[in-house]
């Protein structure tokens, strides 16, 4: 049972076409702060057979519009805007 607070996930580029979503709300599995490093597994579980797993391996993360340097040091408490950042291709 999911009982934790909610976060918002933003999807761009390949991550968006794989999930067919530009964003979704995700309830964290518990009230304890969740390591950002555990988020990939949660998202892949929600989107099986979508190709998201392979895409996430190429992606970086941002939390509240700041790029994350080290996923091991970031914990999600609820309320955050987390974005999946695929390799960029502007210009």
């Amino acid at each position, binding site marked *: 049972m999911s009982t934790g607070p*909610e976060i*918002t996930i*933003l999807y*761009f*580029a*390949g991550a*968006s*076409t794989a999930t067919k979503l*530009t*964003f979704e709300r995700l309830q964290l599995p518990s009230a304890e702060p969740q390591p950002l490093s555990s988020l990939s597994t949660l998202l892949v579980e929600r989107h099986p057979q979508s190709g998201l797993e392979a895409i996430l391996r*190429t992606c970086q993360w*941002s939390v509240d*519009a*700041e*790029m994350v340097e080290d996923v091991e040091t970031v914990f999600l408490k609820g*309320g955050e*805007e987390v*974005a999946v*950042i*695929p*390799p*960029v*291709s*502007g*210009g």
Partner: protein
Amino acid sequence: MSIPLSASVDARHGTELGVAVLTHQPLNNQEIVASVADDGAGATAVFIGTTRNSFKGKVVTKLEYQAYSKLAIKTITDIIAAAHANVSSAPLTAHTHTPLQASVFSGPRDEDSTTSTSAFRPQRLIRIAVHHRLGTVPVGEPSIVIAVSSPHRKESFVACEMVLEEVKKKAQIWKREYYAGEKEDEAEWKANA
């Protein structure tokens, strides 16, 4: 917590160093160049990136750009500041010639010149404008326009290329190419790296 209906929206952030713009509207080269105009500028370097009609033998019909605007605007603003800092501090020795040296003592002064170890630092760049298009961009139209003004030509050339390369490498913007004869939902998201 508000629901982000779309994170890829028009955005603009200006500082005294320049401006970063993301827009769904066609880019107006002349207006962008005019936005960096200054009586102290002897040079304006402009880069116009346009959507190309082919990729590895395939016919490109259109391109689509998407951004995480809130973050991309911050990234581009940081790149503009870094270009100012870089060009102002680095000696452009490789191609420096006498007139450039002379500019050290004739250019307008920086705001923070009093904190510099020398009597004052030259202002080597004046303004940088970076405009990136979002949404569908037909072939042949500009997707990015960068304009850089400076007292002398070398700095604006150097900064313009530096800003372009950094934007392509770091700004949270994505391009999707659509090819003739292929399904739209299979169009490819590109990667610059």
